[in-house]
């Protein structure tokens, strides 16, 4: 049986954690925040009565969901320079991940908005609200509750997908692991160690999801 090299495990832990704290986590948080804002706009476009707005959103979502994330990353980082647009690794990754999250989360938010009963819109209009105020004060708070589980899925997927950024030279958890592995030739150990850290991050996120659901469920009959 092969004896794991525990010294290497611990000595490599800090560079990997550093990659997570300075790469993976901020990359995921930033992209998710931007992506969510984008998704809300896209969801509202898809729900719009103006067909051309709905059409643009539909095409956007179709392209984002119909092409691999890795290809999107490569187009932005390696492709755009050939038409004169050069973006650094980090912003390239943020752009690609935000665009991607926007496409996926848009459908989640659209479905969540549609899940709020029509009577809620009518009651909001009845008390004199405009469409935008009804949306922000009455509809979206209720849609938020419904969309927490699927959006948590999107976020957890994103955290793991940030490992793809290692392929466009972003310093993050997986790239750190690759570098230590190449140097020490301990591939199994380092990649399992990286996997372990990803898993722990996602466990924390799942717990956070639980808390959030509980909080948003306080006004719902059990």
């Amino acid at each position, binding site marked *: 049986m092969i004896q794991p090299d525990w010294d290497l495990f611990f000595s490599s832990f800090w560079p990997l954690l550093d990659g997570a704290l300075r790469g993976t986590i901020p990359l995921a948080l930033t992209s998710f925040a931007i992506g969510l804002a984008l998704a809300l706009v896209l969801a509202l476009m898809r729900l719009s009565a103006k067909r051309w707005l709905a059409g643009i959103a539909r095409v956007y979502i179709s392209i984002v969901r119909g092409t691999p994330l890795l290809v999107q990353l490569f187009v932005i980082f390696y492709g755009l320079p050939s038409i004169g647009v050069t973006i650094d690794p980090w912003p390239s990754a943020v752009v690609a991940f935000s665009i991607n999250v926007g496409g996926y989360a848009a459908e989640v938010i659209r479905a969540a908005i549609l899940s709020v*009963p029509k*009577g*809620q819109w*009518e*009651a*909001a*209009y*009845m*008390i*004199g*609200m405009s469409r935008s*105020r009804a949306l922000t*004060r*009455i509809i979206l*708070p*209720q849609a938020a*509750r419904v969309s927490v589980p699927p959006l948590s899925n999107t976020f957890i997927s994103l955290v793991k997908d940030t490992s793809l950024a290692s392929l466009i030279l972003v310093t993050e958890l997986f790239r750190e692991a690759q570098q230590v592995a190449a140097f020490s030739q301990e591939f199994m150990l380092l990649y399992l160690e990286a996997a372990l850290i990803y898993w722990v991050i996602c466990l924390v996120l799942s717990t956070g999801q639980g808390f959030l659901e509980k909080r948003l469920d*306080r*006004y*719902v*009959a059990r």
Partner: protein
Amino acid sequence: MSPADLSAESSSPADAAASAPLLRVRGLQKSFGTNRVLESVDLTVGRGRVLALIGPSGSGKTTILRCLNGLELPDGGTIEVAAAADTAGRSASGAMTIDFTRKASPKQLGALRDRSAMVFQHYNLFPHKTVLQNVIEGPVVVQRRPVAEVTAEALALLERVGLTAKRDSYPFELSGGQQQRVGIVRALALRPQLLLFDEPTSALDPELVGDVLRLIKELADEGWSMVIVTHELEFAREVAHEIAFVDGGTIVEHGDPKQLLRHPQHERTRQFLHRLLNPF
């Protein structure tokens, strides 16, 4: 709290205008796609008057009510709206006639909506807000009235309907009857000229109907102007000044409640009343 306290119409300088009806509806039409729901509806709602709309399901009575609040946009006809006095939080606006054959302006629709407040069949309380928050949302957020003043008024209204203890409860914690009373309080807190009730007791368990009907009757006795869509004939006779029988998208006949219920003039009214009074 009576409408006179709330909207100060009787003290309005324009006493002549004060005697004009609140709403005068002429030739109202509405289609959903190719389905013509309202053929041509004429009705008048006077100040302090209670109009009950009765009729078979699908006859268009709920659609009429929703048109009065702008929840449905009619395709044709006119609604004349009386002038509204300047009350706290909402500005005065003059009398106007909205012609639905042309596109009604947002300002006209806003004025129409401002005049009335609706009580829904399924209550439609905001589930993510407490009872008190449900009541003050419109006055505070839309009408921009001071929170303290609106809260005091809301608590007085809640006390009146016996729900003070529920002020911080969420709607799911209330019975249907309690939810509907909150729905009525939410409507009153908007200080409307006119209350619209869309089958307010149809979704309630039978033993809860009485409380809600009693409250509506009290409000009617205080002089609130109302339009009520209902299946409760007994209640309509008791509360309404006038009953209109709606069928096939028009008002087939209307008149004094006792007269209409006892001696209907039209065959369709007779058949409807007969079916309702002899269900077996």
